[in-house]
């Protein structure tokens, strides 16, 4: 079982930011950044004015509903923050507005200029003229480098957090930097700086216990380059929905292409051959449980993380679980009653707003996979607003033994039907029976 418990920083809790008074680093930079800033104190003082608090304001009450952090990346008032900080504003602009606060300055309105859904980044535009903007670090950073994360943890005021850059996190997709330091809710979208003040990553999430994740800054650079410097055109709601759909399609196309170009690890267990994990795209966890009546040996794998779209919808994940169940004590009726519970797709597993999804429809059939008989269910539902996307589930139960069985779930969310077909077909081709060797 996956032991990680990610905590996305931009939940409905408070998020903050911070400002640093220091000289401007304009983009394009007019002056080279200082080569060395020794202490956290001087770093904070130097760059605090480039960092702002981004609040999601309920128009009805005028009070904040969520708070995050952002930082200036251009002298025209453009800010980088996390997509999840502004997601609700994008989905319900009639209900929310975005407020920018910087030190003692008066509050400013912000608008979304563009976003990168998969990398959880958004580019905001304001009418502010910052005295300082942060430079995005262009090169490699060595593991073990001292770095500083800025933000407003738990809305308790501007803070600077000292931590360690630990390189690209293994098995994370999309790519994330492993930051060892206590970053918390409220710091989402804040910058993590080298001692020279250049940004190496954007705070995005934490697993707790000082294990934080940052978005590599090159994705912020790409977002900036992909959009006009300052756009006056106001995007409509349908434009945002189209962009979200387009980006989700691109994300899962990329994920599926990587999945298809990399072989599954093949696992042989209990006489079966099954597809295991995919190197570089995720991870697998084993679990074993046993009681008086039966034993379950489980293998859960994933490829890619879910993409946060809004508070009601996260999608774009691919995961599968194999369970090898065996019983000496149950009769065949009881064993199949047990299996029925395992394969029943409870409603809680398939939640989601009716505004976003149609109903599930399922078909079942008995299929021979490399000579091994399985009962296979396929369940599919279409997205209502994100056109062309589906959630698909494939459930298999082996039928070759009366009191032992392999049952497998493959779940794909936010995929095109073509990708659903590609992934399931390759997945199914990896199943088989391992011949028992004689003594």
């Amino acid at each position: 079982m996956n032991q990680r418990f990610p905590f996305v920083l931009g939940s409905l809790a408070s998020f903050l930011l911070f400002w640093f008074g220091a000289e401007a680093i304009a983009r394009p930079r007019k002056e080279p950044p200082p080569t060395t800033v020794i202490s956290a104190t001087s770093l904070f003082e130097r760059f605090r004015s480039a960092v702002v608090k981004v609040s999601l304001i309920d128009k009805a009450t005028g009070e904040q509903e969520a708070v995050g952090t952002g930082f200036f990346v251009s002298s025209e008032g453009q800010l980088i923050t996390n997509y999840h900080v502004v997601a609700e504003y994008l989905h319900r602009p009639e209900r929310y507005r975005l407020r920018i606060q910087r030190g003692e300055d008066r509050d400013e309105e912000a608008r979304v200029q563009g976003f990168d859904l998969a990398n959880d980044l958004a580019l905001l535009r304001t009418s502010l003229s910052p005295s300082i903007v942060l430079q995005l670090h262009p090169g490699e950073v060595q593991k073990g480098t001292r770095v500083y994360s800025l933000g407003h943890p738990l809305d308790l005021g501007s803070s600077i957090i000292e931590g360690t850059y630990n390189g690209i996190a293994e098995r994370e997709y999309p790519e994330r930097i492993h930051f060892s330091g206590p970053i918390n809710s409220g710091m989402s979208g804040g910058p993590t700086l080298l001692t020279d003040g250049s940004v190496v990553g954007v705070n995005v999430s934490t697993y707790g216990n000082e294990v934080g994740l940052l978005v590599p800054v090159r994705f912020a650079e790409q977002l900036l380059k992909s959009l006009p410097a300052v756009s006056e055109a106001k995007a409509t709601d349908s434009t945002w929905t189209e962009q979200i759909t387009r980006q989700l399609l691109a994300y899962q196309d990329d994920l599926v292409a990587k999945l298809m170009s990399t072989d599954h690890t093949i696992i042989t267990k209990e006489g079966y051959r099954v597809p295991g994990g995919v190197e570089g795209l995720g991870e697998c966890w084993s679990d074993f449980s046993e009681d008086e009546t039966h034993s379950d040996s489980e293998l859960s794998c994933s490829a890619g993380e879910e993409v946060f779209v809004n508070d009601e919808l996260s999608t774009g994940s691919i995961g599968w679980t194999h369970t090898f169940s065996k019983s000496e004590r149950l009769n065949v009726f009881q064993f199949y009653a047990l299996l029925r519970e395992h394969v029943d797709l409870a409603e809680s597993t398939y939640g989601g707003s009716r505004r976003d999804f149609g109903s599930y429809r399922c078909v079942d059939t008995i299929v021979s996979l490399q000579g091994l008989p399985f009962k296979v269910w396929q369940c599919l539902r279409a997205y209502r607003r994100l056109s062309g996307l589906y959630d698909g589930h494939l459930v298999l139960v082996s039928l070759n033994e009366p009191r032992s069985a392999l049952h497998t779930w493959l779940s794909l969310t936010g995929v095109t039907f073509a990708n659903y077909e590609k992934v399931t077909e390759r997945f199914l081709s990896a199943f088989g029976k391992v011949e028992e060797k004689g003594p």
Partner: protein
Amino acid sequence: MTADSNVPQAREVPTLPRPSLLLLSLLLLVYSLFGIAVYVITENHEPLDESEFWIITVFLFVVIILLTLFWSFITWGISKLARVATSFRLHLKYVCLIGIAWMMVDKGLEIAQFAIAPLGLPLILWSTLHLMAFFFAMVAQFAWATTMQLRQAVLISLSAVALVAGIWYTITFVQKRVHQSAPQMNLDLLSSQFLLVSPRSQQELREAARSLRVLVDEETPRSTE
């Protein structure tokens, strides 16, 4: 044709033993115990401790008795509407008998699947057999427990089967509306395992998925809100 031949012959009503309260109680007890045994043997997969055992036993006992009384009342009502002489106690007795027979047929069919699996009979056959068993049980009950003629019993039984099917369909329909987004799966694994004559190919699985997609697309209106 003689005048005599035009006189309708009165149906010879079988002389039924008057069911005693003791016999009824015994039948109900057998019926309940049989139901509990079937449940424990086929459904429950966890070992029960003593308190769980008694809770389940009492629960099932009460449920079965209530169902029996309910069904007896319905059939008694039907026979009253059909103006055939009958008594509620007689119905109760026959419902108990039919209940026991029904459970035996039901589980017997399930077990029979093991024996005749190699014949490769399709799954639909089992559903048909279950429905037919229910139908014949109804016919038997009306024919035996009342003074109905066989033809009357068949017609009333058909109506009863249609009524049950209608109620069942309505409940299923409401459930689907309430749990609209939940997948509706046929979870019958036991039948599947023993009906393996012609498993489909992956190609057929792919075609099934494509049909599913067409269905899902038709049913899901796209929204631009």
